């Protein structure tokens, strides 16, 4: 029984990106489905980060097309992608440490007050604090005061702020670039739990990670990038970690995998 495939939320077809003589993307395809966590893995130089940058608007591909909800889109900057509802969480804890949690959540999107003070440009700090509290609570991040400077938080909590920020503003997709790389084991697990909560709220997540146990624990599907292309998309429930790594490194061809391993 074959059902018609649902339209992917985010799709890329035949992306090409060259840097001088180096071809980073060589006709890469990509599909993100509704409500899933899609892990993107690949060796260094496989074109994984170039692919993600193209999807996040950080680079402009030389050829190929990107479709959001089935409609072609062109991103000229990360801001373009954000305006279309694609938010990115960066690995190096992209927060302003001396500023409060609320300020970090709303950085660049601060609500203004009404009336004369608003006309003068005054920010609605009450609203920022209340909304920040609501966003953090909806992801079950227990922090008492949204006025607290981010630098007083642990690494995991800081990443929690970054995740909450993207989840609060993303309408379509959240991209997480190595969100656990800078964290210890326990905090890494907390952030994985957060990623699940983001997905459970209906936002599909693209997770870039080198951490195979994390990928296998959380991903619904795994996109394997190799030599600037998509080598395969596999189902973590039906493939072993070693087979996945074998495809990633080229030790095994995707055709050699059992049919059910492919997703």
């Amino acid at each position, binding site marked *: 029984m074959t059902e018609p495939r649902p339209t992917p939320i985010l799709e890329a077809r035949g992306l090409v990106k060259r840097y001088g003589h180096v071809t980073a993307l060589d006709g890469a395809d990509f599909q993100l489905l509704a409500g899933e966590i899609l892990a993107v893995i690949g060796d260094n130089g496989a074109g994984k980060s170039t692919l993600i940058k193209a999807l996040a608007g950080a680079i402009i591909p030389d050829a190929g097309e990107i479709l959001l909800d089935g409609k072609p889109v062109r991103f000229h900057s990360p801001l373009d992608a*954000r305006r279309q509802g694609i938010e990115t969480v960066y690995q190096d804890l992209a927060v302003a440490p001396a500023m409060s949690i609320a300020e970090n959540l709303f950085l660049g999107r601060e609500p203004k007050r009404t009336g004369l003070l608003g006309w003068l440009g005054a920010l609605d700090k009450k609203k920022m604090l209340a909304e920040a509290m609501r966003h953090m609570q909806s992801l*079950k991040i227990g922090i008492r005061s949204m006025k607290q400077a981010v630098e007083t938080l642990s690494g995991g909590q800081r990443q929690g702020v970054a995740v909450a920020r993207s989840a609060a503003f993303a309408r379509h997709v959240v991209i997480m670039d190595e969100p656990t790389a800078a964290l210890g084991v326990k905090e890494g697990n907390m952030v994985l*739990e957060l990623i699940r909560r983001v997905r459970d709220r209906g936002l599909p997540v693209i997770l870039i990670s080198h951490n195979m146990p994390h990928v296998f624990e959380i991903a619904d599907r795994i996109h394997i990038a190799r030599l600037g292309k998509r080598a395969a998309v596999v189902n973590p429930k039906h493939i072993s970690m070693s087979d996945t790594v074998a495809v990633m490194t080229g030790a095994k061809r995707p055709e050699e995998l059992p049919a059910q391993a492919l997703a």
Partner: protein
Amino acid sequence: MLPDLATVPPTSIRGRLLAHLPPVATLGPLLALFLAGAFFTSQTDRFLSGSNFSLILQQVMVVGVVAIGQTLVILTAGIDLSCGMLMSIGSIVMTKLAVDSEMNPYLAILCGLLVSTAFGFLNGALITRVKLPAFIVTLGTLNIAFAITQIYSKSQTVSGLPEALEFFGRTFRVGQTAVTYGTVLMLIMYLVAWFVLRDTAPGRHVYALGNNAEATRLMGIDTARMLLVVYTLAGFVYGIAALLLVARTGVGDPQAGQTDNLDSITAVVLGGTSLFGGRGNILGTLLGALIVGVFRNGLTLMGVASVYQILITGILVILAVTTDQLSRRKG
């Protein structure tokens, strides 16, 4: 079952305390100012008087305004070594045009402001477009502005200013104490800067930029444009300082502004703003400028030669930077 973020104690006790206490950075300068005042009161009976305080305010008014521009720049994790000379060139342009070229004095003031602002824009453009370090750029424009000032004025003092240029040096009386309009302008500028930095999006973005420029850029804020605006605005502020300088001294002095580079940085740092950017408070800068002013004034009253005052300012700035550095290391 994975651990939940909510089950982890939110933060250390220290973190929670820090969230609720007023920033220590603003208490330190206040205490230092008080101690300096107490010290000079004990050393000379001429220190503690309304007229002397009014004098200190007048002496502080020029460097106080320069330090507003310097604070904006330092909050972005930059530095402006050219500030004193950008003020100097503005003051010479407005006095030369008004006196020697007999230009309408208001137009002359406008031209002076424009020249200082243009130099600020040049600083910002070189830093953001050519991507040169602020330190080198402003060291360069310092010398350029100084040289142009000397060439244009032939190193001659301009005197015989029209009244319009001296307005901010005039005084009104509050009880027994004479207060200059320039002091009032300085205080208004501090209040405006305080509001903008504390309560508006552009102000908060200045802090964010100084905190983590890359993160700020990734959040969709045009950081290059912001830096350009900050340096240009700083230039404009130095132009206002030029007007106050001219009004206070009653002449266009091509040798003026040479101590204001270090003095403004001293005021900013003494006021608790971090040289690493992103932390600090503009009202702290006012306190810092007052500390410098109180030291200069008190030492003068004690009969200490001005070379020693420069020595002490140098020591003060190093002490303040050391405190900043140590508190960052602990944090």
